[in-house]
């Protein structure tokens, strides 16, 4: 089309969705908040994958990051703190036609949501999950989270937190039936995009750990993250994410990694010194609960009447 990007064309082919089809109101996060980058990239991804906004649902809990659905012109469910997983699972189970994304924070997922998190991994329903890990409770204004590093000074631990953090990837990799685990950072848009794309395309519970900047309450972490380019390792290999060469070259280090090797994945997840970006683990053979969820979908009322009658027969006097 004359080299123009479809977005700026006025007359579009039917059913082609542009960026504006996904953009709702302006987001209200702090300046410099990592959440913005994810929002923009998700909108782009939706456009590129041409996800019908009417068929797309963003489900979240409560937290800064969980405001996300309000900024998408798709269906959304901004539910309860820690409970995005069961809601999203309930949506997807009998509605295979819907694209369901889950947005959760480190408090939302790893604290109050931990039980459902573990079980969602096991259920392995086809959900694209983004954990926004800013290592702090943002919305409630600066309390230590389970993923806060030991020694974190916050409103609830003014003398520094006393426990080592939960490592979300490590924990996810420790649950049987785990299907997809990836890691990215909010400040590398191409990588962020490609990772979420890989997650979205993976059928099953695709867990993306997003290291997210919170300049408001974790400003030292921002530096630690952004300054630490040489701590960032790009994972390459067959099962990695699709990246341009430019992006690959922007990394100081790359590591060849076999995403089918769970032990290797765990070692990467547990490395205390370096951050590995890309798909750590992928298992396409894991049992999917949503496949069971749809095995008998779409019965007509007549079929249902028949089933009821046959059940009543068994109890007939």
């Amino acid at each position: 089309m004359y080299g123009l990007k479809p977005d700026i064309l006025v007359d579009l082919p039917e059913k082609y969705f542009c960026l504006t089809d996904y953009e709702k109101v302006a987001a209200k996060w702090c300046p410099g908040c990592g959440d913005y980058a994810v929002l923009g990239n998700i909108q782009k991804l939706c456009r590129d994958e041409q996800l019908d906004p009417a068929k797309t649902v963003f489900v979240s809990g409560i937290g800064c990051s969980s405001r996300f659905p309000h900024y998408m012109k798709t269906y959304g469910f901004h539910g309860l703190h820690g409970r995005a997983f069961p809601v999203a699972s309930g949506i997807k189970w009998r509605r295979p036609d819907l694209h369901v994304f889950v947005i959760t924070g480190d408090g939302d997922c790893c604290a109050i949501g931990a039980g459902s998190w573990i079980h969602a991994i096991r259920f392995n329903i086809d959900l694209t999950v983004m954990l926004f890990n800013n290592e702090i409770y943002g919305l409630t204004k600066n309390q230590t989270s389970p993923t806060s590093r030991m020694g974190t000074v916050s409103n609830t631990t003014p003398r520094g937190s006393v426990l080592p953090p939960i490592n979300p990837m490590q924990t996810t990799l420790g649950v049987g039936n785990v299907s997809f685990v990836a890691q990215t950072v909010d400040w590398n848009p191409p990588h962020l995009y490609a990772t979420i794309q890989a997650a979205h395309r993976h059928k099953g519970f695709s867990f993306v750990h997003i290291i997210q900047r919170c300049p408001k309450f974790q400003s030292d972490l921002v530096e630690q993250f952004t300054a630490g380019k040489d701590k960032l390792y790009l994972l390459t290999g067959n099962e990695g994410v699709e990246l341009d060469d430019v992006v690959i070259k922007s990394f100081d280090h790359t590591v060849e990694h076999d995403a089918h090797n769970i032990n290797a994945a765990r070692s990467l997840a547990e490395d205390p010194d370096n951050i590995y970006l890309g798909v750590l683990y992928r298992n396409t053979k894991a049992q999917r609960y949503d496949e069971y969820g749809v095995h008998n979908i779409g019965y007509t009322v007549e079929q249902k009447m028949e089933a009821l009658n046959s059940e009543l027969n068994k109890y007939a006097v």
Partner: protein
Amino acid sequence: MSTSTSPEKSTVKEEIVPSLPGEHIVEIVSDSGEGAQKCGQSFAAISAKMGNGVWTVEIIPAEIHPPSRTIESASGIRIRFGSTKVTNMGDEAELMVALNEQVPYARILQKAYKEGTIMLLENKWATDQSEHIKTQYATALKDFEARGYKVIEIPMEVECLKIIKSARKGKNMWVLGMLCYIYDRNLDIAKNQIRHTFRTKPEAVIESNLLLLQGGYDWAADNLDFQYPIKPMELKEEMVVMNGNEAVGMGILAAGIEVCSMYPITPATSTSHFLAECIENSGGLIHQAEDEIAAIGFAIGSSYAGKTAVTITSGPGLALKNEFIGLAAMGEVPLVIVDVQRGGPSTGLPTKVEQGDLLAVLYGQPGDTPVITMAASTIEECFHFIILARKIAESFRTPVVVLTDANLATGQQPFPRPKVCKEWFSPPIDQSPWKQGVDPYEWDEATGLSRRPIPGQPNGMYTLTGLAHSKEGKPSYDPENNQRTTAYRSKKLATFKNTLKPPEIHGDKEGDLLIVGWGSTLGAIDEAVDRVRAEGGSVSSLHLRFLSPLEPGLKEIFSCFKKVMTIEINYSDDVSDPVINNDNRRYSQLAWVLRAKTLVDIDCYSNVEGQPLSPRKIVRKLQQELEQLKA
């Protein structure tokens, strides 16, 4: 009367006088695992098939495997049946069968027997190897006679061993045969019933059970010198017989609900056992969640996506669902919540009946959370209320709670076979384009109602949120908006109430005493009222099905009676206790709600003994109240 330890002809001559003509109450108690329940359920089914009215109450041990020959071990069933409709468990039993002499004590504690109750007692313990057991048996025998029971010792084990090798599994069918003789049950129907009960078992098992049935029957014919034939009745319409949890499950099928999301909890779980067997044939599924919170969250997700779901629980689980109920009310998600009430508070009495969750359902959620609440009073209503609840939930875009209880859950009762009709079933989800310009919460000014977009509908995109929100579904901190939208949500209850009729009164529309009840006590209350009215007492009763909103016109109805009193199975302070007075008394749950609603000085009569109410108990209370009203 005398007892016999040999299979000689029994000497019982007296007729068994039932409390009410044409009916009998039988109990069968055994150690947990001996099959008393299966025996009783079969007996009930046979009687229902003969057109008799039936009501059963299960006797369930609280422990998984209590030590045998103890009070805790008592497992069994009560069957009240007769030639007219039976609506409750009745008073003391006329006859009981006990497989050992210890288990009856569990029921004696519950005052289940009276002077003159016939006791058919397994006599093998009289000659047990253990001296201790022999002594226990002898002691109990004396005690039973002192209590005025007519004990007939029966060589059940001995007789069964003539038919099968091990009597432990089988004695129950022999007992069934014996009961069939006593009550003159149709043996063909009985045999068919056995075939049905053991339909998944090998033919040999069916055969031996049929032999046992016949054996028990023949032995009784040869050895018992009494019978109490209950007249079979002609079945005027097709009937079904099931318990309340099965009826709820049937209701779920009939509502066309495709997702039942639950976490196991007594006494609600057996609904999911029922559904697990059959809902897949009906295009539905059971989801067993990791806990109650996730169960309701999953159900809400499903409902949000257009597949209105049901979640089933009991007290402790209900406590966990409150936050999500609040979200469902706030986000206006249709949802059916079934609470099968059990004894509380806390873990309480998990297998026993109580009506203790009413206030928690009505007021348990922080903030203003209007929730439509109804309570089934019969097993038939367990079925129909689920269908109704799904409809209300969708029409009013709201969670609806259906209350039942442990009494309904496990009790069996025949009722007319529902005539399955298309309108019961939820229609396929609407995926047509949403009308542009219509907001996702376009509340109707007059009714508070609005239509909701379902994911997949083009143009309908919105974000559901638990935050205060505008009609566009956007978070709004505007004071006026919060006032108005809270009012819309509340108004739906008023709108719904306007569709309800004032409840019907059982008995006269005015008089001395009005009894108000709700839930499973219906049959017992009405029967008690009938009895007292037959003696000339001026008492009527009224049974509520809707608890929130309450059915209309109550104040007017109440004003026609000198006194109004609720009868409930939950706690109220006893005014006769020295520390309790009218200023500090804590009332029964419905009484409390009705007091606030009508400002009538409503009294209450209740207990938390974990038992269904017997008509006799109520009769006594009514008589006492009427006397006091006279004075």
